């Protein structure tokens, strides 16, 4: 989940808008200057040449087009208008180039302003330079592409590249101009004139505007590394420099070549002049000697040719003041010489050869000829010297060009080559990291696929709006993905959980902590489902939650089973409670039953016994012995019934009372029981042997009852023995302690052993041994309640042994 990039910085938009405005203000003011003939407005830089009207129009249109495009979210109208303006600019550039290429005259140059002042040596004073036209072509096409919105993949690089090229040209031009200003004309590598610089500033501004426009649309991000970028820039710069240098030297060579040709012409003229003069001089001398008029026929022509030569020389050396001075001298001398010759010819014709000979011998003719010849020679020498200089300069320029050009090309090639390989290395790295990225992406995709197979997944934004829902989520909630996206989780809120629960959830994840719980949700069709939910918050760099990922597992079935179990448990508990209550009621009933038995059943017995005794006490002496015996029997019967009731009640109480388990000192309670029993049997001779009696865990009162009953039985059934012997002790059996009481008494037949522990079960007649038949039943009941076991081993007349354990773990 990446945050979308912030909207274009408004500052860049302002910069782009500003460049547009500057451009069309420049164009507009210049055009106004041309129309109203305000010279200052036509010159961007004071003292420079004026900006041509066609160039001004180009800037105006370009600036307007750019300004329209920079408007935030330009409408269709603005785009169309901008496209039209850009098309005009493109046409201006293209048509001007066509004019140059095919040497046509279309007339666009004078379309706006007709009277552009002529400049010497320029054919079309209103026409812009081809470089300027090319720049307009670039500007116009870039604006057009942007305005008609060609495919972005094409548009962004084209527009940006055009902008960059315009900026580069502007910088180079201004740089060249600055160099010229600082170091002289030879260093103006691009040969920019002052008016060219004004246009360059305009293009620099437009180029910057295009770049700002691209950047403001976030279409100008540079990811090539700085080394590669600077390599390319250096390479291109080197190439441009090489080209510029070659251009400059070529221009110099051309200039020196022209100069050499010029000098040779000058020399030729000088020689013609010399030849002409020599011809005139010799013609004059021969005529003076022979007087043949035929010799003078070409004389006029020759002197005219010499004068013509002089005029040519004057024109050729017009830039050379030293030669001009010499030429002025020559002109006078030659005129004087020609005048002298004319005078000689006239004297020969009129006065004859003797006078002429004297005249020639004394006249200035010879001196003039020498002067003329000297001046011409000097001119010739000077020209030869200059010719030598020019040749040397051309030679050096050629040498420099031949040396520098290949070196420059090689340097450019080398730098560009390095840049290319850097780029390649960068691309290899990038491809590698892309592959790694693809692999880790694949891994993440695999994980997600697996997760989607297993779990219900949803992603929400910081506000809880669902931004992602997987198929399982849709399947379980029965909502379509479209219905879920943009909603928050309230759509599946079941209302089952209290507000605090939901608040707790938000508090936890709001603090950046993972939240985990089981939740009940509601599907679209109103059915409910349970999910085990884990919500993981993902934070922004400043620690605030940015989005949440919720992973859920369907636990509806488990919840149903849990609910069922809970239900069954509750049912069971209720049943147990019911049974317990029933049992308690039964117990209570039993208790009140035995309570009333103990009170009410006894009342009549008391009456029987009490009044029998009263009769015996009050009327005993009057009764016959038999009557007294009967009353005694009645009393014994009533008392026996009282004992039976007591034993029965004891037995039932032992079954009801809760066990009070604790550590019991078996030896101590056995000794206490024996002490109680011995009081009743103190006359007898009994051999008692007490063995080892380990501690045990149990209810001391009940266990004492057990020992009392067993020991009293042993005493009772040994009553008929002369030497009664009773052994009390314990033995270990399978890790359990087995207590025993053995006697040498009457014993019993083992076939009746099963009846021993029943209530009211007796193996002896009451007249043999008294007893109610409850004692052993009590023993068995207590032992069983302790989880133990009781059994007996006996033989008639050889005694009996009773064993009991207190169950596993009951012994210690």
């Amino acid at each position: 989940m990446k945050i979308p990039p912030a909207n274009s910085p408004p500052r860049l938009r302002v910069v782009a808008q500003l460049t547009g405005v500057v451009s069309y203000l420049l164009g507009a003011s210049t055009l106004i200057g041309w129309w109203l003939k305000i010279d200052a407005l036509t010159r961007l830089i004071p003292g420079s040449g004026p900006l041509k009207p066609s160039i001004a129009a180009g800037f105006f249109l370009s600036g307007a087009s750019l300004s329209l495009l920079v408007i935030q979210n330009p409408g269709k109208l603005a785009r169309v208008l901008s496209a039209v303006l850009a098309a005009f600019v493109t046409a201006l550039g293209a048509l001007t180039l066509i004019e140059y290429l095919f040497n046509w005259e279309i007339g666009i140059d004078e379309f706006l302003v007709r009277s552009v002042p002529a400049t010497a040596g320029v054919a079309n004073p209103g026409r812009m330079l081809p470089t300027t036209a090319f720049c307009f072509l670039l500007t116009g096409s870039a604006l057009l592409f942007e305005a008609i919105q060609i495919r972005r993949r094409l548009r962004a690089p084209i527009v940006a590249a055009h902008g960059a090229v315009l900026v580069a040209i502007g910088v180079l031009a201004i740089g060249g101009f600055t160099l010229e200003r600082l170091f002289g004309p030879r260093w103006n590598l691009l040969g920019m004139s002052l008016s060219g610089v004004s246009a360059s500033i305009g293009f620099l501004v437009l180029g910057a505007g295009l770049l700002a426009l691209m950047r403001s649309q976030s279409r100008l991000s540079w990811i090539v590394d700085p080394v590669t970028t600077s390599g390319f820039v250096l390479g291109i710069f080197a190439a441009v420099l090489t080209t510029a240098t070659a251009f400059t030297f070529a221009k110099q060579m051309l200039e020196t070549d022209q100069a050499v040709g010029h000098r040779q012409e000058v020399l030729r003229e000088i020689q013609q002049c010399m030849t002409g003069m020599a011809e005139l001089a010799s013609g004059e001398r021969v005529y003076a000697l022979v007087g043949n008029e035929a010799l003078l026929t070409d004389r006029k022509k020759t002197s005219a040719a010499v004068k013509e030569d002089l005029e040519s020389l004057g024109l050729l050396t017009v830039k050379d003041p030293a030669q001009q001075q010499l030429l002025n001298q020559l002109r006078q001398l030659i005129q004087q010489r020609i005048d002298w010759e004319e005078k000689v010819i006239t004297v020969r014709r009129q006065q004859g050869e003797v006078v002429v000979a004297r005249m020639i011998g004394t006249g200035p003719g010879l001196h003039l000829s020498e002067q003329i010849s000297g001046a011409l020679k000097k001119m010739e020498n000077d020209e030869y010297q200059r010719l030598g200089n020019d040749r040397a300069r051309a030679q050096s320029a050629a040498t420099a060009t031949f040396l520098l050009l290949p070196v420059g090309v090689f340097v450019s090639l080398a730098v560009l080559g390095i840049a290319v390989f850097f780029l390649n290395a960068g691309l290899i790295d990038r491809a590698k990291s892309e592959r790694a990225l693809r692999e880790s992406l694949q891994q993440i995709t695999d994980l997600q696929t697996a997760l989607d197979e297993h779990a219900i997944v949803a992603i929400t934004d910081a506000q809880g709006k669902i931004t992602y829902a997987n198929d399982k989520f849709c399947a379980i909630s029965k909502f379509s993905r479209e219905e879920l996206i943009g909603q928050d989780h309230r759509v599946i809120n079941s209302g089952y959980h209290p507000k605090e629960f939901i608040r707790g959830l938000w508090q936890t994840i709001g603090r950046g902590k993972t939240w985990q719980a089981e939740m009940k949700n509601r599907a679209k069709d109103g059915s409910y489902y349970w999910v085990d939910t884990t919500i993981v918050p993902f934070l922004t760099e400043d620690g605030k939650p940015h989005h949440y990922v919720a992973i859920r597992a369907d636990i509806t079935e488990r919840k149903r089973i849990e609910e069922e179990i809970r239900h069954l448990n509750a049912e069971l508990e209720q049943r147990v409670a019911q049974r317990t209550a029933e049992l308690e009621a039964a117990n209570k009933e039993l208790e009140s039953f035995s309570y009333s038995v103990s009170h009410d059943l006894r009342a009549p017995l008391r009456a029987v016994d009490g009044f029998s005794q009263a009769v015996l006490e009050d009327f005993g002496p009057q009764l016959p012995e038999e009557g007294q015996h009967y009353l005694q029997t009645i009393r014994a019967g009533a008392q026996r019934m009282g004992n039976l009731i007591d034993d029965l009640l004891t037995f039932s109480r032992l079954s009801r009372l809760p066990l009070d388990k604790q550590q019991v000192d078996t030896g101590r309670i056995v000794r206490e029981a024996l002490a109680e029993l011995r009081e009743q049997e103190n006359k007898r001779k009994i051999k008692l042997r007490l063995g080892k009696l380990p501690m045990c865990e149990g209810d001391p009162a009940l266990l004492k009852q057990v020992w009392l009953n067993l020991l009293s039985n042993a005493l009772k059934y040994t009553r008929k023995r002369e030497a009664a012997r009773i052994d009390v002790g314990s033995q270990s059996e399978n890790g359990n302690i087995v207590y025993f009481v053995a006697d040498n008494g009457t014993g019993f037949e083992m076939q009746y052993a099963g009846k021993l522990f029943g209530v009211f079960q007796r193996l002896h007649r009451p007249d043999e041994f008294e007893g109610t038949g409850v004692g052993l039943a009590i023993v068995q009941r207590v032992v069983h309640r302790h989880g133990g076991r009781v059994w007996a081993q006996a033989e008639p007349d050889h005694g009996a042994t009773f064993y009991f354990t207190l169950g596993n773990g009951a012994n210690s």
Partner: protein
Amino acid sequence: MKAANAMEILVVEDNPQDLELTLRALRKANVSNRIQLARDGAEALDYIFCEKDYEARRIEDTPKLILLDLKLPKVDGLEVLKKIKQDERTRSIPVVVLTSSKEQRDVVESYRIGVNSYVVKPVDFEGFAAAVGELGLYWLLLNQAPKMDA
């Protein structure tokens, strides 16, 4: 008659046979005090706290001894015992419980409430004598001196 009133014994018993045996035992023990009978718990309370039929009585004239059966109609013996022992005015009256059985529950509860002694029915002379002896009342109840009557 003031002295005689002060010496009376309250016997609370519903079973006529038990009552007869009790009275016989007392008689045989030569206890000559005036004996007041109550046939159920409610009547016993009325007598002790001078209510209803016994309104004329003064509560200060407490019986010297109360023989109390536990199993009684209307209000049972333990309840009667509790009322006696909770009231400031009657707390000091010695109470001997007459019980039919050695039912542990009754014994424990009686002593908890504050019974002075415990005698198992049928009331034989030895048992009664032991109980009264424990209370130090024996010579007051037994062979009462004639001068007290005067």
